[in-house]
């Protein structure tokens, strides 16, 4: 028996990230506490940049590596590149220390009891929890692997590697710790539940096809006739697991609670990168493995897409907490992506890739702005406190308004081109009625985005309103880049659209 060959060069980005994550754990053990924070940040950023360079160098590759378990192709590399860019900005936001008087957004030690004497001492001594960086790297590693996974087993491993660090990160907020811990526990319990369902579905699919590889499953679809019940159940259950991760209705109930409870930089990281990775994995699984039976799963996705768009848009209307509002908005956006997903062709893949990239950038930027609006209790997330913000800090409010306009899909922002491309793909793929629902949902959604803009610019400031903290260079650069990209991709989207187009072919 020969040892399997591993294509190290093609898998280099993954190896870099996982290697750096392991090094990060070692740093926790061996580097003195005082310098640990800068060292960890530096290692994380270096690894992410190195991996990004490796992904760029791999551009154009189309092969299956690691004995068929990992695909290195256009969609995978496009998403990996995007995730890495977003992760670099996220780590910059994680490292922000100007806002909490020397602390960051994370509890000094997540294991201390909230409100205990121990916690107070640690806060006073300005202790920093540096485990967040290796955890984030593990999560990023999982996210890179998730959309590249080309067999069921790898898909499940990537799902767990991605999710477990995120559960932890959600529970580490410095302020409102009970809320944060509750969010983490909820996310974990429901995540475990959905993983179980996903695994169950995998077992069914394996039972039907007798193989784990996507390509071979696809072949089995035409060969094995007569056991369709087990296959359909399996596909349905696997879909549930993935729909949970992207936050589609009716598997969305965790989203608002977790987005609200998690430390805001983590929320942004999760909202942007997890969604990217999960959609990437979903598109690959459904197009490559289950593409031959699309008429079976399309009606189900139609229903989910409609429910997701409408529930997300309508419920967001009455939210009074900015983070919860953005959570529901992210649900609605998942619905918009699903409209293109239903089309199931190469145009749709390109549209989804573009949409995810623009959505990720705007989301990250929006959550970063949320971290800056603060009062004595930390971030002022209640919408009433945002009244009149445009008068006190016009630049910040205008930046946030830009992100909101992009979410609303107003022309000359990236969101408009994104919506345009997914809706066009859906129309081409024969899902025109879905587009009608999508247009209605985005008109509804525009109301609550604009409500915030009106609140910021046309309302009188609250008497004891929040102040806008001056961030460090890191955060400022991150937000500026996000805003610039959002505007630029709205005016000249051509290059990125072309890139998405070129990257839209799955290797089988």
């Amino acid at each position, binding site marked *: 028996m020969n040892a399997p060959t591993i294509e190290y060069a093609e898998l280099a980005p993954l190896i870099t990230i996982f290697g750096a994550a392991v090094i990060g754990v070692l740093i926790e053990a061996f580097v003195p506490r005082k310098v640990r924070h800068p060292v960890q940040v530096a290692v994380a950023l270096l690894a992410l940049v190195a991996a990004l360079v490796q992904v760029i160098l791999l551009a154009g590759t189309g092969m299956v590596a690691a004995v068929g378990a990992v695909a290195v192709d256009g969609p995978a590399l496009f998403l990996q590149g995007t995730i890495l860019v977003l992760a670099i900005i996220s780590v910059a936001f994680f490292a922000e220390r100007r806002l909490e008087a020397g602390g960051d957004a994370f509890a000094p030690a997540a294991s201390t009891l909230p409100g205990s004497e121990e916690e107070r001492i640690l806060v006073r001594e300005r202790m920093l929890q540096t485990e967040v960086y290796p955890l984030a790297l593990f999560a990023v590693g999982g996210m890179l692997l998730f959309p590249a996974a080309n067999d069921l087993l790898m898909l499940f491993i990537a799902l767990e590697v991605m999710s477990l660090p995120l559960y932890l990160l959600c529970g580490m907020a410095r302020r409102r710790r009970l*809320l944060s811990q509750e969010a983490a526990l909820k996310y974990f319990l429901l995540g475990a539940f959905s993983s179980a369902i996903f695994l169950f579905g995998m077992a069914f699919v394996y039972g039907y096809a007798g193989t784990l590889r996507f390509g071979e499953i696809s072949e089995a679809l035409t060969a094995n006739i007569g056991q369709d019940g087990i296959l359909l159940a399996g596909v349905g*259950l696997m879909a*549930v697991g993935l729909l949970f991760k992207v936050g589609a209705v009716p598997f969305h109930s965790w989203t608002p609670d977790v987005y609200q409870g998690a430390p805001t930089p983590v929320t942004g990281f999760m909202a942007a990168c997890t969604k990217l990775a999960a959609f990437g994995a979903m598109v690959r699984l459904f197009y490559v493995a289950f593409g031959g039976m699309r008429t*079976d799963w399309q009606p189900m996705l139609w229903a989910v897409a409609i429910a997701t768009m409408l529930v997300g848009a309508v419920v967001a209307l009455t939210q009074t907490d900015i983070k919860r509002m953005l959570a529901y908005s992210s649900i609605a956006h998942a619905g918009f992506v699903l409209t293109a997903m239903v089309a199931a062709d190469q145009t749709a893949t390109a*549209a989804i890739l573009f949409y995810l990239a623009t959505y990720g950038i705007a989301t990250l930027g929006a959550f970063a702005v949320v971290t800056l609006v603060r009062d004595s209790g930390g971030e002022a997330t209640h919408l009433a406190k945002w009244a009149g913000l445009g008068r006190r800090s016009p630049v910040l409010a205008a930046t946030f308004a830009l992100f909101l306009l992009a979410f609303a899909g107003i022309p000359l922002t990236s969101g408009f081109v994104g919506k345009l491309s997914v809706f066009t*793909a859906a129309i081409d793929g024969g899902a025109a009625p879905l587009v009608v629902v999508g247009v209605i949902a985005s008109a509804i959604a525009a109301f609550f985005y604009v409500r915030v803009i009106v609140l910021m610019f046309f309302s009188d400031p609250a008497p004891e309103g929040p102040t806008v903290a001056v961030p460090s260079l890191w955060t400022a650069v991150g937000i500026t880049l996000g805003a610039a990209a959002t505007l630029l991709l709205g005016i*000249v989207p051509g290059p990125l659209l072309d890139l998405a187009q070129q990257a839209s072919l799955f290797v089988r």
Partner: protein
Amino acid sequence: MTSTLSALATAVATEGGHGGGQAVAEATGVFDLTWLLIAFPLLGAAILLLGGRRTDKVGHLIGCGASIASFVMGVVLFAAMLGEPSDGRAFTSQLWEYVNAGGYTVDVSLLLDQLSISFVLLITGVGSLIHVYSIGYMEHDERRRRFFGYLNLFVAAMLLLVLAADYLVLFIGWEGVGLASYLLIGFWQHKNSAAVAAKKAFVVNRVGDMGMVLAMSSMVLVFGSTAFDVVFASAEGASTGWVTAIGLFLLLGACGKSAQFPLQSWLLDAMEGPTPVSALIHAATMVTAGVYLIVRSAAIYDLAPDARTAVVIVGAITLLMGAIIGCAKDDIKKALAGSTMSQIGYMTLAAGLGPAGYAFAIFHLLTHGFFKANMFLGAGSVMHGMHDEVNMRRYGGLRIAMPVTFITFAMGYLAIIGIPPFAGYFSKDKIIEAAFADNWITGLATLLGAGITAFYMTRLMLMTFFGNRRWKQSEPPHESPSVMTAPLWALAFLSVVGGFALLYFGAGIVDWLAPVTGEEHHELPMPLWLLITITLATVVAGVAVAWLMYGRRAVREDVPAGSPLTVAARNDLYGDAFNEAVFMRPGQYLTRSLVYFENRGVDGAVVGTATAFGGLSSRLRRLQTGFVRSYAVTMLGGVGVVVLAMLVVRLP
């Protein structure tokens, strides 16, 4: 008629042109610089909005300069166009590729032809006059620079709208003018009513925009493109159902932007903005974008008679509605706003008549741009002298205190009611003729509208400039400075000669536009002299009734009870109540019920609690009562539904 239509459609199909079948050439020479039209005001807006306080002192000059530069460029292009043969005056210049997604590509390219240059001259010409006027009007406003920045932004967006060669690019300009409009309606944001009005304009316009998006989606579906040339050339091959649907969607978009029934309610509230804004955006240019859209889409409407009928009906309803509202308003700007609605109703109606009416719609649009801008600026001048009083019951006898405003306003007045030889006579009379030639009902609607217009405009004139003085201030109102009266003179001049000049100068506007819109003549059911006599008699009757009610008798300062129709008109004919009953209530109900299922009062407990700890503990308590379980149950239900949905599909 059918033969003309099919001939037209064939011309469109074979020549691959747009509208009337004019061949479109690649822009060369000076036409290649069309983009400068948009670049000047865009640059102005960028300097003013990004330049900050440093540009405060010269902000208004930069703003005016940008607009005037664009106007000069427009005149140069117009002169160059005159030098070309009459069927070779359409030029496209491609700027860059905007979107290339799959088979669907959008180029940012500009189309300069007879129709768009007419708009360019109106927008930049009237726009420049209003810029100059604003120097005086906004003199004491500390945010004047920003105001000029927004005005420049508006002009740039509006020019993009009329120069675009693709519905999607048009839509970008469409949203841009919307944005500028909201910013300017809400410019005096310290007034709560201004903020509310801005929001209302946005919300109502979203409904219209939905029509635009659906129209574009349908085009992508049917034609695979939204470029004018592709859509117009292949419209004939599409099924009538689709073409009609696209026509109706476009009409919905037009209704939102042009304040046509049933989306008219926002325009009256939009008068909260500074008066130059009302003149430029909410009278002369932006609100006519809907008419532009319909005329530009001539090739689609030519193939969809049902959609055209809908356009005529919408136009007729709005023209009467606006006129009736105008009769009852005591706020001078709102009375003018009702009048704007009504006049745009005329244009929409004319556009709905097809090739017989397109050119007249644009003709009336241009003259209306002159005289309505004139009257709005006149109203602004009155307000300037009256310390921002807008209630006409507190005016009276102002012709002596403000002679220039009075004379220029009178020119606009004579123009709008259609007294020969003022501008409105020529344009409105043409529409009335075309309407009678089409059928009796639309003809009578336009005739009745002319009578009501004469009534409410006379009422406005009498209440403002004639009769006893009803103002309370001690010193008499002063005339406005010359920087404000000069534009008034210019616009008054255009109100006098604009109609005659446009109709008879050179070959006249109808021939000028014919290559784009097509041309068609209908037989009148009666001799022309008879129709003109009837029209003028109706106008005189309207004037006489108004004089009997407001000229002979003294105007009361308190508001009389009025008939049910007056009360209804004061309430905008219950447009808001209609919106509330049809859109808002069901929407709120749906939201509330959905939120109930979604949250079960989660937010109430957390957000309502002032202290963080109260919220935390209630959260924690909920955690212990098994909230996750209910989420999990929802998920499990979802699993059931998904698996069932998968299995059901396979059932025979």
